[in-house]
């Protein structure tokens, strides 16, 4: 137990510091509003009154961690998961777009990578465009994608997934190109002495070699994919999804709601990255590699 504490001490210390700063910040940022409230009510106040008041505002500039937590718990446990007031429902909507976008991104990114590695013309013609595509801010692209897809009759899930895919295919392509090219030249010679076909060399040698690179990319990609889905929910003006929740929170000055949606999306992101890590351990770490 003490060893456990010792190992966790630095993390705990940082966590506690953040909490203290957060509460301090809440006092500082909410004080003007609180003082105004006291003045309007015409009652005298002391330092403790001020602290109490800044921690219990209905629409604080900065809500306290416990306000966020109680809002989160209230939303998660006091409404059925299908209710629009339950954050799980919104997380589910966003996760759906995230996963679909991620799968499309992996498929598209992998296709590009395989083409780039095997065809020299694709390497010189596609690679610059792949990089340029990522220099365009997603916030500028997202509304246009939504409008275009809307015109074609697609709303809801698909435009969101496409925006998500646009962001997340990039790490997959870059990682997989690097991975597929990291094959040991000796191992390639070996395949040649067996007169192995291009596809045999790919499935038996190149792909297994690239898996560690691919999974690193996947972990980055799935987190980016979630950002894509959330950004895509802003211009759709939808009523469901973590992005919509963030947007409506900011419309109505519901800061606590914004923060709890934010925490929820962080939790979703952690879960997704965790799942990717688990898949990596199951597929890459099947006893084949020592440590690494």
């Amino acid at each position, binding site marked *: 137990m003490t060893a456990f504490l010792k190992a966790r001490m630095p993390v705990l210390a940082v966590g506690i510091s953040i909490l203290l700063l957060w509460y301090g910040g809440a006092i500082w940022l909410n004080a003007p509003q609180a003082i105004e409230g006291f003045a309007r009510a015409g009652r005298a106040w002391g330092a403790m009154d001020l602290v109490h008041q800044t921690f219990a505002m209905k629409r604080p500039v900065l809500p306290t961690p416990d306000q966020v937590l109680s809002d989160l718990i209230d939303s998660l446990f006091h409404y059925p998961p299908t209710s629009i007031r339950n954050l799980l429902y919104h997380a589910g909507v966003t996760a759906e777009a995230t996963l679909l976008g991620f799968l499309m991104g992996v498929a598209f990114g992998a296709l590009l990578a395989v083409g780039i590695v095997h065809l020299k013309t694709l390497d010189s013609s596609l690679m610059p465009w792949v990089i340029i595509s990522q220099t365009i801010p997603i916030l500028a692209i997202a509304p246009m994608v939504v409008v275009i897809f809307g015109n074609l009759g697609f709303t809801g899930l698909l435009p969101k997934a496409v925006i998500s895919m646009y962001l997340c295919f990039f790490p997959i392509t870059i990682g997989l190109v690097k991975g597929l090219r990291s094959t040991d030249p*000796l191992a390639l010679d070996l*395949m040649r002495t067996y007169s192995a076909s291009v596809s045999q060399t790919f499935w038996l040698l190149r792909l297994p070699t690239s898996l560690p690179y691919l999974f690193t990319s996947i972990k980055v990609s799935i987190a980016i994919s979630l950002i894509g889905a959330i950004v895509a929910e802003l211009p759709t003006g939808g009523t469901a999804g973590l992005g919509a929740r963030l947007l409506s929170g900011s419309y109505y000055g519901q800061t606590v709601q914004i923060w709890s949606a934010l925490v929820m999306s962080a939790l979703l992101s952690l879960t997704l990255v965790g799942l990717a890590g688990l898949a990596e351990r199951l597929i890459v770490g099947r006893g084949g590699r020592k440590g690494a």
Partner: protein
Amino acid sequence: MGSSSTLPVAEAIATTPAENRPIVDIRTLSLIFKAADKPVTALDGIDLRINSGDFVSLIGPSGCGKTTLLRVIADLEQPTSGDITVNGLTPEAARLKRAYGYVFQAPALYPWRTVERNVTLPLEIIGLDKTERQRRSAQQLALVGLAGFEKKFPWQLSGGMQQRVSIARALAFEPDLLLMDEPFGALDEITRDHLNSQLSRLWRTTGKTCVFVTHSISEAVFLSTRIVVMSPRPGRILDVIDCDLPRERSLEMRESQRFQDIAARVRHGLAEGHSYDE
């Protein structure tokens, strides 16, 4: 290493020596690498015939083209001029027919595959079914003294054992020709001696034709029926020495006068071709 395993193959299947059919036939072969500054002549006017059942060692200092010559035979490099046939075919046709097994300097095992699945890799490529693959893998692993290590991963094995797995892998589709590029170069001397006697026995009992690249004189004399001495810049054959020791070799044989005489001749050949002007 640890295991002082002997090969469990019956000595009786020893085949009759050389029927003098050329397996590899090389005539006035040259290879020039186009380097950035100036072309490098890696091989120059090579003439060499390797007969069935021969154990031919290519020996010479670094840069003499011995590995390049082996890679030309394996169709891993293309000659600039001259003729070469392997089993009467072009090297490419021979490679496509899987005429040879190749053992590299490094074991080049796939770390994500078990020992058994490394040995069965070439068999998967040629499309044998699973039972046959496992049967052959067991057979070849026994031949190199690694029965019982099927389920281990390469990193769980010593360097010498890994290299024996790579030999078993090269033998898996039962080629008549075995090309080996300094397979024991990275191993300590004791392990090397041990593997040399195993390899010698393997060659004698299976009757395969072997081409073996090395820069160890005693290894070359111990293993070979013929030793090809090469010199660098440009890569040329200086001398071809018959190594007429009995086919059955023992490590003690290295102390014999005959062995010493052949080794001396190889040494002289190497010294002659070695330029110290750099």
